[in-house]
């Protein structure tokens, strides 16, 4: 077949892509080497913003919180999701019927259908210190999101609640592929349920585990909505994350150059993480 002429089909996207992604990304990179308030002419300062970042306590704190959110959004949901998927597939499905398993799966998945900002709205009122449902229902007087010692743990718990259904559904889909003969053989050999999960389930759905860890880690690195809605990075900087930190510099402090440097570092980290995951996955094959 003739190959010429197909470029025509690509042209509209490439133009739009240039305007919406490539040019803005390069502008962001350029601005990160300047001091700029958003109006007037940016002043070239070279690597100053990046040097400042390295010494900025808030910047390091925001990444530290980001690691906590990776635990809450990627690692914990993957581990619990694995146990739940295996239990639903291999135990509930077989002994109580697939309908029971499907119903439970749907309930675990429910939070995932919400826009993440709406999940924040739900918990924002549930956890409100004076009239929130949690304090009222359990007779507590905790300031879940306003106490600096408690805020990050609370946000983490909310994010586990939000994310959990995603690995459960993906892992259960992956388990459909697994040959039941493996389980039967292992059961005959007297392998305990946990051993079967570890030695059969995990290796069989390795690709799904990779995908879930990668996508959830990226989501955790980008997290913005729940922080904006629940805590705005506070109290103090207890729940500050890079994404919100850059937003703050862009739109409230008019430190556009500094905000751009934060965003560039975040982008770099995400690209590197993606690349590493794909490398490891490649090697596994």
């Amino acid at each position, binding site marked *: 077949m003739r190959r010429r002429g197909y470029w025509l089909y*690509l042209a509209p996207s490439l133009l739009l892509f240039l305007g919406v992604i490539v040019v803005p990304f390069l502008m962001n990179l350029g601005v990160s080497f300047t001091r700029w308030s958003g109006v007037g002419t940016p002043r070239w300062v070279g690597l100053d913003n990046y040097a400042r970042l390295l010494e900025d306590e808030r910047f390091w704190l925001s990444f530290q919180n980001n690691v906590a959110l990776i635990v809450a959004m990627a690692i914990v949901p993957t581990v619990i999701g694995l146990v739940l998927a295996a239990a639903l597939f291999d135990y509930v499905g077989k002994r109580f019927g697939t309908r*029971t398993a499907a119903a439970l799966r749907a309930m675990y998945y429910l939070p995932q259908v919400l*826009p993440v900002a709406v999940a924040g709205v*739900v918990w924002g009122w549930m956890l*409100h210190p004076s009239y929130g449902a949690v304090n009222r229902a359990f007779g507590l007087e905790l300031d879940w999101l306003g106490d600096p010692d408690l805020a990050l743990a609370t946000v983490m718990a909310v994010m586990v609640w939000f994310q959990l259904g995603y690995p459960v559904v993906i892992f259960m889909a992956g388990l459909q592929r697994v040959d039941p003969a493996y389980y039967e053989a292992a059961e005959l050999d007297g392998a305990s349920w946990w051993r079967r999960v570890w030695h059969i389930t995990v290796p069989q759905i390795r690709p799904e585990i990779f995908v879930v860890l990668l996508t959830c880690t990226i989501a955790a690195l*980008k997290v913005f909505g729940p922080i904006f809605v629940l805590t705005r990075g506070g109290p103090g900087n207890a729940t500050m994350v*890079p994404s919100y930190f850059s937003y703050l510099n862009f739109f409230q402090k008019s430190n556009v150059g500094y905000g751009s440097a934060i965003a560039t570092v975040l982008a770099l980290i995400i690209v590197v993480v993606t690349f590493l995951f794909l490398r490891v996955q490649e090697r596994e094959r």
Partner: protein
Amino acid sequence: MRGPGRWAVLAALVVLAVVMVFPFLVVALNAVKSREEYSSEGPLSLPGGLYLQGVVDFWERVDFGEKLVNSLLISGSVAVLAVVLSVLNAYALGIGRVRGRLSILVLFLVANTLPQEALAYPLYYLAKELGLYDTRLSMIIIFTVIQAAFGTYLLSAVLGQFPKEILEAAEIDGAGRFRALTRIVVPISRPTLSVLMIFFFIWTWNEFFLPLIFLISNDNQTVPVALGVLQGERYMDATMSSASALLGIVPAVAFFLIFQRTLTRGITVGAVK
């Protein structure tokens, strides 16, 4: 495992399921209570009756109908336009196999993983220069491109497997390239395209960061932005907060139920994102 052990596992799984659904129940219960009932009976009592004034008050206060229209307009347009762009791109990349297609695909993939933070300020600046700031059109354009980047990547792989014989037969019959696309490739790929369209719709509906920055006037705000900005406002009390959460939940759950069948088929498609 037999006897009580068997039920213990099920009980543990059911308890967890109740915990997961608990916030939805609490929101639904309290959104239909009056303020007095909430303060006297607390959050866990069953409502004495359907008191909808809280929901109505909140609806009118934020003009929620308008927010729904904005969200529908933006998400609907993006879903359709992004699928159109994805199909055009994937036709050139997957079937046309244009030169340099691998680097183009990598470019699209990287674009999809880039955080929006690294594009936000320049986009904001450019939109202001072009007079597109604080318009729904700006969101439609930006999200069409972002979603199409993912769609192109996915669809190119799908169309790479497209049976060549059909296209060759069409060419012999004198069908032009555009005709082959609209009469053959699109109809045959319809199931994948509809999954893609639903995902684009929901993903765009759920977006928060860029709409928060771009849609500053009330008249243009989407549902998540309007609700997210009001969270924790002083005048919000328990029942009003509950009503606001309910209004955020209902459309999301409705879409899920409407699209469920297509979605469960395509959920592994979403896993690639």
